[in-house]
């Protein structure tokens, strides 16, 4: 019988085997994680822990394991980003305006996981309404990255918005976690925390029951400690949902089966425009290393051009706030969440929204309202949509000459809590390599590939053709093997 601390070190694939062999029970696995969550409370990775629910679900899993009715994720303890509505469990989007809100429904993605036998450990922290790249905008406090710079005790951010999910997985207080990605919110925190995260193709996972940030960009995906676990989780999360008109009716392949595929003859694109001026040398080095690894595996690098890349970030920061300004109108103090009374309905709106939304959310609502206003719509929103179409076309053309694209995930390693907080534009630059993927609706994965000079994880990103997650898993699996990334936080 393994000790609880080592149970939390297992990958999902290993735990699946151990559970099937009855080496340990789902209850023991859940209990080990709950105990670890207690020990790592200082990380603030969870907004709410659900220990009673976790143990009850694990016990039910044990019954199914004993009776041969185990699902694909039977007994696997997961963190759920607090953007997914969970029935009767507080769902806040890390905002005061939803504090205490217990949805009477379960999101499709989390329901899919429960249907596969997974166990809920709690709701993971995030940037408020998923707006941020540091997790510092959470109304429930920032999340600490379990990693620290070598010889520097300052607390670092885990990235965002899915910072709680990435930190929890890295800190071994969840075997995997759900996350969402609107402009990089799965991939950047995965890179910052040395774990794997995939944003699948837009429409692959249902958005039903996920608190909306920017509907045309939001997409759910998993974060886990290795490529295989990520593939296992995505298979369970994905699928067509008639309740989401933008979800796509395509069968979900067995992603795990793509691992181990040969890369012989595969062409991978290196976008010229991603070699930014002033790109940090260590990021450039990592990228070059990635190219070498794939070449060693028999794949062929191809220089490609994505000419509209430089317009991606501005376009993103028009489209996403525009949709957010409308999506967040429903938080008005009338039907649920925070209500701060006033002498008129206008005052009730003003008081409730002023008290309920944090500074970054307010900033984006204002930007979004502005760009949609009469007289500005054509210059901003419409133009941004045109840019978006051009970016999508860039990728289409690039995929004439390559099968997958390799880039860094983020322009830097994790930064310290408090850094970049006074400069929203510096913060927005974190998304420079990731937003194009959301604008084009394509799948992207981040895989840890090395350490920075001060000992922090760095990620490489692979971008695939629409609905070709299998190639992403196959290629990232090779990168993972070549990188042999074995470093752990706090080690």
């Amino acid at each position: 019988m393994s000790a609880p601390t080592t149970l939390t070190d297992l990958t999902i694939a290993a735990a699946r085997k151990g559970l099937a062999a009855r080496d340990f029970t789902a209850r023991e696995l859940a209990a080990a994680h709950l105990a670890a969550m207690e020990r790592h409370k200082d990380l603030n990775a969870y907004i709410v822990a659900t220990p009673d629910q976790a143990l009850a679900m694990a016990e039910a899993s044990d019954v199914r394991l004993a009776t041969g009715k185990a699902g694909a994720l039977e007994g696997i303890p997961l963190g759920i980003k607090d953007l997914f509505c969970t029935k009767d469990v507080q769902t806040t989007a890390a905002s005061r305006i939803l504090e205490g809100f217990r949805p009477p429904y379960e999101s499709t993605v989390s329901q899919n996981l429960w249907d596969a036998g997974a166990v809920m450990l709690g709701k993971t922290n995030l940037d408020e309404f998923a707006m941020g790249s540091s997790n510092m905008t959470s109304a429930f406090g920032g999340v600490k990255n379990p990693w620290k710079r070598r010889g520097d005790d300052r607390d670092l951010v885990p990235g965002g918005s899915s910072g709680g999910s990435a930190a929890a997985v890295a800190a071994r207080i969840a075997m995997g976690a759900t996350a969402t990605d609107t402009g990089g919110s799965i991939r950047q925190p995965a890179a910052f925390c040395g774990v794997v995260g995939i944003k699948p193709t837009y429409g692959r996972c249902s958005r039903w029951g996920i608190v909306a940030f920017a509907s045309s960009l939001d997409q759910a995906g998993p974060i886990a400690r290795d490529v295989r676990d990520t593939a296992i989780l995505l298979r369970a999360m994905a699928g067509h949902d008639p309740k989401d008109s933008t979800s796509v009716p395509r069968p979900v392949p067995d992603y795990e089966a793509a691992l181990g595929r040969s890369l012989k003859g595969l062409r991978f694109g290196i976008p010229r425009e991603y070699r930014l001026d002033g790109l940090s040398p260590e990021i450039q080095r990592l990228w070059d290393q990635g190219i070498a690894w794939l070449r060693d595996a028999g794949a062929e690098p191809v220089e490609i051009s994505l000419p509209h890349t430089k317009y991606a970030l501005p376009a993103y920061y028009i489209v996403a706030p525009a949709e957010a300004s409308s999506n967040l109108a429903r938080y008005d103090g009338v039907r649920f969440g925070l209500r701060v009374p006033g002498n008129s309905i206008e005052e009730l709106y003003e008081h409730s929204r002023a008290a309920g939304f944090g500074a970054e959310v307010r900033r984006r609502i204002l930007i979004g309202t502005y760009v949609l206003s009469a007289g500005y719509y054509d210059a901003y929103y419409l133009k941004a949509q045109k840019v978006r179409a051009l970016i999508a076309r860039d990728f289409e053309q690039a995929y004439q000459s390559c099968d997958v694209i390799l880039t860094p995930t983020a322009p830097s390693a994790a930064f310290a809590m408090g850094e970049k907080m006074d400069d929203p534009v510096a913060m927005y630059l974190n998304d420079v390599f990731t937003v194009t993927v959301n604008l084009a609706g394509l799948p992207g994965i981040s895989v840890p590939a090395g350490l920075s000079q001060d000992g922090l994880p760095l990620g490489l990103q692979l971008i695939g053709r629409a609905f070709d997650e299998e190639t992403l898993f196959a290629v990232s699996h090779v990168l993972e093997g070549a990188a042999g990334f074995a470093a752990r936080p706090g080690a």
Partner: protein
Amino acid sequence: MIIDGKTGPWEIVIGLEVHAQVISKAKLFSGASTEFGAEPNAQVSFVDAGFPGMLPVINRACVEQAVKTGLGLNATINEVSVFDRKNYFYPDLPAGYQISQYKQPIVGEGHLDIDLPGGETRRIGIERLHLEQDAGKSIHDQHPQKTYIDLNRAGVALMEIVSKPELRSPEEAGAYMRKMRALVRYLGTCDGNMEEGSLRCDANVSVRRPGEGLGTRCELKNINSIRFVMQAIEYEARRQVDVLEDGGTIRQETRLFDSAKGVTRPMRSKEHAHDYRYFPDPDLLPLVLDRSWIEEVRANLPELPDAKKARFVADYKLTPYDASVLVAEKENAEFFEVVATGRKDPKLAANWVIVELFGALNRLGRDIATSPVSAAHLAGLLDLIENDTISGRIAKDVFGFMVETGKDAATIVAERGLRQVTDSGAIEAAIDKVVAENAAKVAEYRSGKQALFGWFVGQVMKSTGGKANPASVNEILRKKLAG
């Protein structure tokens, strides 16, 4: 219509925006029921209430209703249309935006032929028809400080049908509304009930000197009957003429119609100073319709008022006016057809339905569905006239009894002995008696005062209780008086 002002004639220009609630079991984007009259907030899904993470899914049945209506308006059906968000804050709009269609509506240009008095028609252009969600209801009179919200109606499908500014009088606006109501009722796409608010209308009104360009318009809201549409336009047009003739200018504004006072007044600027920030709803894909499906819907359309009217004129030889009166309500047209079918003189049926039946229903305050005289009973009455069992004169009395008792004509004729006397012996005897008792009058007649003939007919009819066959009376009387 021309308004004669102090300084000369003015022409009224009117465009109407009709909001028609779609007949459907479920709402436009949620599965919640649409039935009228449920307990407040009993028919609300989490989508309708704007809960976090909820997403709209288009109801195909509502799309079909909009396409049907578009086809009924002889309009272009757009194979691709887009749903947009119209953003504004109001408590009865839970999501903070209404899903509507702004730049790419489901239905484009078409026309509606309105029926004018005297049987004329006029073609009015339709600009567009689009689908949108209805809002909930704010209830302000239940509590001194609080407003209550009922979301039963929130999310119910509406069709907004916009006319071109081609109506020229309150009467035409009324005729347009009547025709629109008839059309949607024929199609079964809206129940047309203005009292319950399932058919509502806003009117854009301006005035100009005949032949000049369009004047500045005002939008009139809150109009919930055809009579009020006409009243509101009439008032507003005269108001605008007064303002202009006094040297003032018309401000483009939204005005509310106060039906109690019969006036329009400006809404507070706060009530309409909106920038709706329209943009395509990212939760919904563009609505793409299949050409062959549209043709299938077209092929299955019922007979519509104009076609029915043309058929009534051709097959039943009705005047266009009578035909338009009969087809105005589908139920009336169906009633008429039951009465008229197989009849030698269908015009007689039209007269009875329009004059006698509608007159009676009017007096009783009933509609055709609750008529005390069924179509079969009225047909039975006309049968008795046509086979000379009773005269037209007696038929009116019989009809009166039918309205009172709900019995059929034959029963009433039998019970009351109203059968027409065609037996020439009996008629002859009655005539002989009248001739014998009025020797002086007979002498006058015979000396050339032919006009007295009618008086003799009257006397005979009177003595037979109106039951004598008028043709026989005429014939025999003429002989007897001739001596």
